[in-house]
């Protein structure tokens, strides 16, 4: 019997690092986006000149996302399906008791966060899941960034895969959108940088060996980051960004981050839902 081995462990990571280093050496200082991605798949991930983070990932990373079997984020989708039918709480209900199949929630992910008249502020998917748990199921809410909450959010994103991001920013959501926008353009931290400095002014350029994306991750998260070696939420990514500019991060699920989430998802408008996306 013949055998050949290809391992996606350290080798994969090293390959990605080498690839990005080579690119960095060759292209530093230039708009490098032309080097990314095949033209055929570009169409899907570029809408009106807005580019998904997919186009800023290396070919190796893209290929992990493209194949549902290799994509480790799918493990969380499966986990989400298990939790979907699990009865919890005093009401004796599971998600399936009210919603039937997870696919019935197709179209939910692209419109969140949205204005919630009850609390008179924005509510995002994670918070909406937890509201279902506390109010309908009479169960304990899941902790932010906990396995079950990530798995359920990933599942709900996954069933909307391919749909265009479409959040509402007018009406009652407008003041929150403005706050999110303000956050995006406001300098903070020891490095005195705003989100816009990397993801608006210098998108497509290199910061050391890393290619800066346009920061349109609205349709990608929860995403599997190779750095994290697991699925993580958009708010975890925000935290990471804030730490990198040496600012004190906000708590995941805080009003500041939910407002910012609305702004980032609006920046991703029209881009397809990619959950579970794979990023470096």
């Amino acid at each position: 019997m013949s055998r050949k081995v290809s391992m996606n462990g350290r080798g994969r990571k090293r390959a990605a690092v080498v690839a990005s280093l080579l690119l960095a050496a060759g292209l530093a200082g230039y708009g490098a986006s032309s080097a990314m991605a095949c033209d055929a798949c570009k169409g899907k991930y570029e809408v009106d000149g807005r580019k998904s983070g997919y186009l800023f990932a290396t070919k190796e990373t893209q290929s992990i996302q493209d194949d549902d079997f290799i994509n480790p984020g799918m493990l969380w989708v499966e986990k989400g399906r298990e939790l979907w039918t699990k009865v919890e709480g005093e009401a004796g209900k599971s998600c399936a008791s009210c919603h039937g199949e997870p696919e019935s929630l197709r179209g939910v992910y692209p419109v969140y966060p949205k204005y919630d008249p009850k609390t008179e502020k924005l509510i995002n998917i994670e918070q909406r899941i937890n509201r279902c748990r506390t109010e309908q199921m009479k169960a304990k809410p899941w902790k932010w960034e906990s396995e079950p909450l990530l798995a359920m959010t990933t599942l709900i994103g996954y069933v909307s895969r391919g749909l265009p991001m479409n959040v509402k920013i007018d009406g009652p959501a407008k003041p929150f959108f403005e706050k999110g926008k303000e956050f995006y353009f406001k300098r903070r931290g020891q490095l005195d940088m705003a989100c816009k400095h990397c993801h608006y002014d210098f998108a497509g350029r290199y910061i050391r060996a890393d290619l800066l994306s346009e920061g349109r991750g609205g349709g990608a998260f929860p995403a599997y980051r190779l750095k994290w070696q697991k699925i993580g939420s958009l708010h975890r990514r925000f935290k990471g960004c804030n730490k990198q500019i040496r600012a004190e991060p906000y708590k995941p699920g805080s009003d500041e981050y939910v407002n910012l989430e609305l702004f980032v998802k609006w920046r991703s408008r029209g881009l397809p839902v990619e959950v579970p996306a794979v990023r470096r």
Partner: protein
Amino acid sequence: MAKARVKVPKTAKAGEIITIKTLIRHKMESGNRKDKKTGKLIPRHIIDKFTAKYNGEKFFWADWEGGVSANPYCSFTCKVDKSGEFEFIWHDEKGEEYTAKAKITVA
């Protein structure tokens, strides 16, 4: 909570070379990371042996070390001559074993 996934073609021609893909959910704790709160090393906990059997015969195996990523993916090829069942075994350092099976019909 390791969970294995394997992808094997359902049918193949005799003598055909097929590609097998496997993925298992495992944290593959390298033993080099520190717990941020206590500052102590998190003990190593990895899958150290992977074995693939065909009709009970071991035909492919690998020893994994601490540098292998979490949720390891492994793909390899083999030539099939007759119908049968694949068995994949991941052996955990703590002695646990995770298995997955897949059947193939060779025409």
